């Protein structure tokens, strides 16, 4: 597989990577919007959701995208026009940068990056910048308030996320996401290797902290203070319409998908199946078909994790701003610091 890819000219490799990246961002985003936002939310509210466009409304998203693309590209008179226009692109670009580091199979990766976890967490905070400049450049007090709230929230929840992931990094002994996948699937629980050693078992607290922080990073509902439609219209997105709103919309759900992919890599064993099932020992002995099956396994795990995110989103009311900050600084950060300590002690002990 790798040899085949290496035999291609450079432009063809770049094109393939580009297509793969676009697929890895847009396919999960579309699926998440249809399956969860349109259908699951409707079912949880005892209604059917879109039913007219295509069988069971499955073409609804194309109708919506078509509608958004037709709209005029509006901007407020006093907006900082250049900044206003690039803000959604900054948000979406952080999603694309994020997916670049996710491994989808033994050879199916975009970059096999040694400091993968570090890179992913650093790049995910670029979207804060996009949101902040969107709120600032709109020349609108709702947008500004939303942007500032978003900045405060995303910075507050970045910390527990980073600190929580350190627990996984210590246990895996690597910041390379591919190594973390291999470490989980090649691992064993007290000598029993039928399940590998997915870190959700040993690092369940980290998993919880990570998912809560992801929920806040995505500004999904219990943490949707920056958007808070009942008080801030639509927060930093208030002045956006047409395809710039569409880009924000794709960015929101694509990032949900990519964060779920990263969570599945960190906690659920990523693309792998326990190596003991097929008698593999390390990443080089894995059969080639895993490059096809791996992405499907990743996709399934992503859907499960996004289901959790969306389930929480559709169930809970919004946190107040002070509750939200207190929860991050006084509960999640001390917990994740304690977890680092505990994991380090156990790592040295075993």
């Amino acid at each position: 597989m790798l040899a085949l890819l290496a035999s291609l000219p450079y432009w063809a490799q770049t094109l393939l990577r580009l297509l793969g990246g676009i697929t890895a961002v847009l396919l999960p985003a579309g699926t998440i919007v249809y399956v969860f936002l349109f259908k699951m939310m409707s079912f949880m509210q005892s209604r059917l959701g879109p039913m007219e466009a295509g069988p069971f409304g499955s073409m609804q998203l194309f109708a919506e995208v078509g509608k958004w693309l037709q709209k005029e590209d509006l901007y407020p008179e006093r907006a900082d026009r250049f900044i206003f226009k690039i803000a959604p692109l900054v948000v979406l670009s952080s999603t694309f940068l994020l997916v670049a580091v996710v491994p989808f199979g033994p050879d199916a990766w975009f970059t096999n990056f040694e400091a993968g976890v570090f890179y992913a967490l650093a790049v995910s905070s670029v979207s804060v910048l996009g949101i902040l400049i969107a709120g600032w450049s709109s020349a609108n007090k709702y947008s500004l308030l939303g942007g500032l709230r978003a900045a405060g929230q995303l910075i507050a929840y970045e910390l527990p996320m980073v600190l929580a992931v350190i627990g996984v990094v210590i246990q895996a002994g690597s910041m390379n996401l591919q190594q973390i996948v291999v470490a989980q699937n090649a691992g064993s629980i007290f000598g029993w290797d039928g399940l590998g050693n997915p870190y959700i078992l040993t690092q369940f607290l980290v998993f919880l902290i990570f998912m809560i922080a992801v929920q806040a990073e995505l500004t999904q509902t219990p943490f949707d203070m920056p958007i808070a439609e009942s008080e801030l219209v639509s927060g930093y997105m208030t002045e956006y319409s047409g395809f710039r709103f569409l880009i924000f919309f794709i960015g929101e759900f694509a990032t949900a998908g990519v964060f779920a992919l990263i969570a599945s890599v960190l906690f659920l064993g990523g693309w792998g199946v326990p190596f003991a099932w097929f008698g593999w020992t390390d990443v080089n002995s894995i059969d080639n078909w895993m490059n096809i099956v791996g992405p499907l396994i990743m996709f399934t795990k992503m859907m499960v994790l996004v289901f959790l995110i969306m389930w929480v989103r559709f169930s809970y009311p919004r946190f107040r701003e002070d509750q939200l900050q207190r929860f991050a600084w006084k509960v999640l950060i001390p917990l994740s610091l304690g977890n680092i300590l505990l994991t380090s002690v156990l790592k040295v002990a075993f």
Partner: protein
Amino acid sequence: MAKIPGLLKGLGVTLGTMVETVTKGANTVQYPHEKETPPIRARGVIALHEGNCTSCMLCARSCPDWCIYIEGHKELAPPRRAGGKPRQVNKLDRFDIDYALCMYCGICVEVCPFDALFWSPEYEYSEPRIADLLHDKSKLGEWMETVPEAPELEAGAEKKGKK
């Protein structure tokens, strides 16, 4: 910590509703394909029984939105009994209700002393042009066909009007 059972219960409610919707169907109906019958005394559209109207203007005057337009003129009608004086009657020229303004309060129906206005449960009369929401005398008369029989009075209620 004490809030965790409540949080889990909340997740259970949404998941339970989802399972119920998938297995037993939704609480909603798919409107253009299936329709619910409106409840009794539903306020859909106001129908005019032209023969009962005396163009007394009570409805137009009591309308909070001023959405009823009435024009009429006086006419002489033949006397009731032979040899009598010709009667003077009000002839209705125009009776329009502008449903773009109407707020469905039903005061006109209540206030009409001659039972000329009725509630009909029909509700599908939206128009692409707002001016078409002005229903004239003949259109209001057509709605009379859709007016249901008056529902049974409650036990103990006294019937007003002619015995």
